[in-house]
């Protein structure tokens, strides 16, 4: 036996694909580290875990996890995951993508998957920008923050993501920053064990674009900000957790529900109406 400690997250990674494409100080990798630990903690067997991403820096996560994984199209990871999840009721399907992917181009799919209560976990890495394409404005860019397409500062209203997911019926909603690795890991574990639609917003730095353009320093400075200005408020009303430029950040687990999933609702209704004539959908089992 070797004395070299093995990194506990290695098991979930396609090590042959390292080094990854992410910049130094980028928060995406930290979130993946937490995710790998959460998968282990939730005791999800890797054969029954499928990760689906859209397009973006965060969208590359699917390519680095050593499970059946899909790198789909920009914004459409959720509908792909919907078909996969419904057809693999014995598996856990995780959508891992960025704020632009999930809430701009993919916003319609996000709200409807939450409303339908499709069994999936959505992890949204919010770096307040389109990282992959060079730092453009997104629906989460705070008012006044600069982006490459808002060179004079953003003038649009922004999404409050936990509130959005909550309003659409998500069963579990949490927000953490990548400073809160232990709490984030715990919430990811919970989300993976949640029946139905769960949503986690992970606030993460993009030092290369968002931080630099807004003169916010490097990744370490971002962690300092997250540490200094985050307050943990589990159970907070999601209406009160909106963010503004370099504001305080409310983090925590905000929502826990136990509603019928899409599949449970379907089966209940069909059994009521069709009785013995109903043949449940088993997917590809």
């Amino acid at each position, binding site marked *: 036996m070797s004395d070299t400690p093995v990194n506990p997250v290695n098991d979930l990674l396609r090590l042959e694909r390292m080094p990854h494409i992410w910049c130094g100080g980028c928060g995406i990798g930290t979130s993946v580290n937490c995710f790998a630990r959460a998968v282990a903690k939730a005791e999800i067997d890797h054969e029954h875990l499928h990760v689906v991403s859209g397009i973006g820096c965060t969208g590359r996560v699917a390519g680095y996890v050593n499970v059946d994984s899909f790198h789909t199209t920009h914004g*459409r990871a959720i509908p792909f995951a919907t078909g996969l999840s419904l057809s693999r009721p014995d598996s856990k399907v995780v959508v891992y993508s960025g704020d632009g992917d999930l809430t701009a181009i993919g916003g319609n799919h996000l709200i409807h998957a939450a409303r339908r209560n499709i069994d999936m976990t959505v992890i949204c890495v919010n770096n307040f920008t389109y990282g992959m394409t060079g730092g453009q404005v997104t629906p989460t860019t705070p008012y006044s923050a600069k982006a490459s397409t808002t060179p004079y500062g953003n003038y649009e209203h922004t999404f409050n993501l936990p509130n959005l997911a909550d309003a659409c019926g998500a069963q579990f909603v949490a927000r953490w920053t990548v400073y809160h690795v232990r709490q984030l890991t715990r919430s990811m574990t919970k989300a993976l064990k949640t029946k139905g639609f769960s949503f986690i917003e992970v606030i993460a730095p993009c030092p290369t674009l968002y931080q630099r353009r807004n003169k916010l320093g490097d990744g370490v400075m971002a962690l300092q900000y997250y540490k200094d200005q985050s307050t943990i408020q589990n159970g907070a009303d999601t209406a009160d957790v909106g963010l503004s430029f370099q504001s305080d950040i409310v983090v925590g687990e905000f929502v826990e529900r136990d509603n019928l999933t899409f599949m449970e609702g379907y089966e209940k209704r069909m059994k009521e109406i069709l009785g013995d004539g109903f043949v449940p959908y088993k997917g590809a089992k």
Partner: protein
Amino acid sequence: MKADPTAVASGMHFIDGNEACGEGAIAAGCRFVAGYPITPSTEVVEQISRRFPKIGGMFIQMEDEIASSICFQGAVWAGLKAMTVSSGPGISLMMEHVGLAAITECPSVFVNVQRGGPSTGLPTLPAQQDVMQARWGSHGDYEVIAVAPSSPQECFDHVITCFNFAEKYRCPVFFMMDETVGHMLGKVKIPPADEIELVERVYTKRPPGEYLPYKIYEGDQPEMVRVGMGHRIHSTGLTHDERGYPEMNWQAQDKMVRRLCSKINDHVDEISIAQSDEVEGSDVTIVSYGITSRVVAYAVDLVRKQGLKVGRVRLVTLWPFNEKLIKDVAQNTKAIIVAEMNLGQMVHEVERVVAGKVPVHLIDHAGGAMLELDTIIEKIKEVAS
């Protein structure tokens, strides 16, 4: 492989093409459909939504066609036969996922009950204006298969053909119906399940560690896989290598894109379905497809009775284009007429292949009604004289 007898509605039916398409998909083994309502295709998903809960299928009405066109691909990777259904504007929205199906080699069936366009166009009226869209609609180089039925019976029969092609060639397959054929009532014979031949999906038998999802072990197709088999596959819409991992250079692109095309183009003979008669020695041959070929057939019968030597070719598969067939026609006839319910789409293919050997004429129509019998007869007489 034979169809599932517990699901197939064997017997004689008097139904429209849309319903026949739904029944055909069921007979083909399709058990997952994602769609969004749009005229004139809606009855297909209505039929499916009535039938699926009784046979263990899943229909989901998605929030839009962009979602529908990728949702069903998730079900395919789970291990199901699946499809989506739409018309006009909906098909336009699906185009990005036609490309995804092409590059990931996902066996995919897109049913297009064509209506007049562009844009919202003529929701309730027919056209054949999406022929080139089916071929070229998504960006990049790739190949598709497209099949055009001309009767409710063929809506049943040939949607099965589409599913079989999808499994065999792992590409996007378009079922190019149109409003008229979709809403036309007719006798449809649904055979006993054991008379319906299906192409079964063959999954790789290689053990984990000895299998790469995009490697060609034999022939020109990679071996199919689904989630949960232990291979830990990765599938991406990026240009990729045999492992399915992104590779951003021209060499990888060249290898991948050329194979996506050649795996279809090298099999035109096996894929092509066409009917032709009395082409040899004819003064003119008329080429058509889909519902238009029915009017053309009638017109040709009439002018033949008047003593004209007229050949007839009906394309059932539109893509890949059967160049050999049309070259042969050009050798054996004095002129060609292409009749289609658009302002001239397939005629470009015919002209390209004929390359000036004989004159090529067009009977066009902007969509909204069937081609008129008299117009076809007049044109035949004009060209034949």
